[in-house]
């Protein structure tokens, strides 16, 4: 429904406040924020590359799918690219629905799709190394689970 790709930091508080302010039929709002994590204590920064021609449309499509699948009143996706410091917010999603379970499932679904279907690539840079973050098998498994869940419901 709402999607944005940007290099600049976003103001989570302002985004969520604006998101909530327009709701008319929702009783539940869920938000997720992903932060740059420094597990080893040696991360200098993260660099996120993306596919400018494709990224916005991919985010928009994922958000629309979540809205339709879970009957959301609204969904929001913001994803950054470029250089990010440890602790900085990489991205956020927000979902609003009449009922709690749909808002949670919508946000979880958005995240599963963003992980593996939005054209971003993360590189972790430390003093001694530069490593592209590898996709995980479990990311694809998470997507497959949503499809089989739909198939089960529809059958």
């Amino acid at each position, binding site marked *: 429904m709402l999607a944005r790709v940007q290099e600049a930091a976003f103001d989570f508080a302002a985004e969520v406040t604006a998101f909530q302010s327009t709701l008319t039929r929702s009783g539940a709002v869920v938000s997720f924020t*992903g932060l740059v994590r420094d597990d080893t204590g040696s991360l200098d920064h993260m660099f996120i*590359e993306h*596919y400018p*021609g*494709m990224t916005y*449309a991919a985010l928009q499509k994922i958000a629309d799918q979540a809205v339709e699948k879970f009957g959301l009143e609204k969904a929001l996706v913001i*994803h950054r690219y470029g250089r990010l410091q440890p602790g900085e917010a*990489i*991205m956020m999603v927000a979902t609003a629905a009449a009922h709690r379970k749909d808002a949670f499932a919508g946000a979880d679904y958005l*995240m599963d799709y*963003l*992980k*593996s*279907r*939005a*054209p*971003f*690539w*993360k*590189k972790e840079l430390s003093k001694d190394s530069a490593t*592209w*973050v*590898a*996709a995980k098998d479990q*990311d694809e498994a998470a997507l497959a689970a949503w499809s089989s869940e739909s198939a089960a419901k529809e059958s």
Partner: protein
Amino acid sequence: MKLDILYFAWVRERVGHSQETYETSAATVADLIAELVARDAGYAAAFADLSAICVAVDQELCDFNTPLIDCREVAFFPPMTGG
């Protein structure tokens, strides 16, 4: 057929550039990859493990059997790591 080919992340690093215009008669993505691999060691290294390569044709994710009819842009990249 003249194509824009885009490369991202470590595929870009191995190929050595992020974008090129390329003249080809390849019928499918797989044919195009075969042509590229034959060009030099950088391309060969980038496409050495095809299970680690994703492709988008005209900005839509697809697979290696996708035909390249009337397409203008092909992009190669590793599995995405958004979120």
